[in-house]
């Protein structure tokens, strides 16, 4: 840990979804760009309020699924092409594809699942066992029943005092400056 702690952001607490949505919209209207909301459950509509883009996760899953599909088909073809096992009169390439389909399907799903969980971890920067937020007293209720609005110090409009006052003014409780 560095000896000189620098400011990481300002955090304020709200105690219901309606208030935090309103606050997030006001902060956005004020011109803040790097805002985040921490809540015990997803609040639908808030991502639009603070301008978070849709996640690219489906594309990662699709990629995983596609690779699984192609690999499984080619693998079965590759293992039988030099030494065909002609069983129940089903040799050849196209002739066998109906029977290969099941494994192709299973492998598609499997790699899609790995890609989805992997993509989820990468996009969230997981595992990450340290966050300055945990220094805040009472932040443990972010996974229980409280809602936190964070304005990052990286925001171009960030000013420790002004931002703090602004958050207090829009109804935030326990407004705290977090250092890292």
């Amino acid at each position, binding site marked *: 840990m560095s000896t000189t702690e620098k400011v990481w952001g300002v955090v304020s607490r709200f105690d219901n979804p309606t208030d935090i949505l309103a606050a997030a919209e006001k902060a956005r209207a004020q011109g803040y760009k790097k805002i985040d909301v921490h809540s015990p459950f*997803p609040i*639908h509509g808030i991502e639009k309020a603070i301008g978070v883009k849709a996640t690219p996760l*489906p594309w990662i899953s699709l990629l995983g699924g596609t690779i699984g599909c192609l690999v499984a088909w080619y693998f079965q073809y590759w293992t039988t092409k030099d030494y065909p096992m002609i069983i*129940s*009169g089903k040799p050849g390439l196209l002739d066998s594809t*109906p*029977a290969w*389909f099941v494994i192709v399907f299973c492998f598609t799903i499997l790699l899609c699942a790995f890609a989805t969980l992997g993509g989820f971890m990468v996009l969230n920067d997981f595992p990450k066992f340290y966050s300055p937020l945990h220094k805040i007293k009472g932040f443990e209720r972010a996974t229980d029943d409280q809602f936190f609005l964070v304005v990052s110090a990286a925001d171009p409009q960030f000013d420790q005092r002004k931002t703090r006052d602004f958050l207090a003014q829009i109804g935030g409780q326990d407004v705290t400056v977090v250092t890292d």
Partner: protein
Amino acid sequence: MESPKIPFDPATAKAPTSWKGLSVLLALVGAGLAAGAWFIQKDHSRFAHAYLVGFMLVALIGTGALMFVMLQQLSRAGWSVSSRRIAEGWMSSLFLLVLLFIPLVLLAKQGHLYAWLTDFGAAAVKNAGNIPDADRLAAHVHHMSEKKAFWLNESSWLARSAFYLVAWVILAALILRRSFATDVADKEGAAANTTFIGKLSAPGIPLLGLTLTFASFDWVMSLQFDWYSTIFGVIHFADSMVLIASLLIISVACIQGKGLMKGAVNVEHKHDLAKWLFAFNTFFAFVSYAQFIIIWFADIPEETVWYHRHAADGWSLLGWISLFGHFFVIFFLLMSRHMKRNHFVTVLVSIWAILMAIVHLYWEIMPTMGYPVPHAAGPFGVQLADILVIAGLLTLSFAAFLFTLSGRNLVAVGDPRLQEGLKFENY
């Protein structure tokens, strides 16, 4: 493009009464097309089979609509309330089906369809000449008809068919009446009617499931009557669900294009209808693949005969279209959320899906022409008369839809769950 959301305007809920006149006109056109097909088609057996394709299409549209409505009511769904009346309109195909059944019986009685009926099959084999082992084949067909006579005989076939039709008509009529009643009832009355339809649906769904299964056995599977498949009924159920989802997407798009139902069905509802289409199209692929792989894998001659006949003489083309066009094309086009929310894409895919359902029925029914004489269906080909009769019956079905909803509310404005259904969003 995703169409923008606008609030529901109840003033645009009512269909004009002019639909009645339009429906009469369309009915005349539809009947004319079918009659025209009869006059230009010299081969009456081929006409009968094409007629059966159209008949099954109308049956699947009607039963699909009925099943859709009952499932939504039983599960107390909110999302489907604003488009459910359209499905109720399509249920009217079931009333039409009763009329359409009469020509089917007449065609069957003349020996154009079912080989088991009064031993038509054995006679056909004897008359065909120049086929190898004709006597043994005729004896086999005769033997099988006798063996299956406990189920496949004229009087019980008629009685069962009548039972299916009556059951469907009663269910559809009861649901339509109660649903129209919610439009004019007060809050309590609307709730009571909605609860009634929900309660009726609980026994209605198993009843419809069973009757649809046996209808597909009796009307389609018995064309090639020595063949059997336990999953045959489920395949037709899946197709009926694909049909109704497609018809709902198209009907809503056309009706909203006329400035009616403003805002009632927005992009979220269309997204859900597209999911329904996608889900049941995949289910259709699952059950069709199950039937194919098990028969193909075990290679038992009694069962592979069906695929042999339906792949012979170029008819396999339709099977390939069913696989690639019915499953893969729709699957990949509708996989993405953006595609399901795209108005243009969903309408286009729906038209394609209806076409594919027709191709699938055509593939199941047409190659059995002249059964059990081998290769009696002749090389694969589509004739103008086939298209005319199928189009004619589809037009009649559309006419019944317009007639039923003419002057009625196109949105169930009194439904207690309408407001909830108008509000939701897909996350």
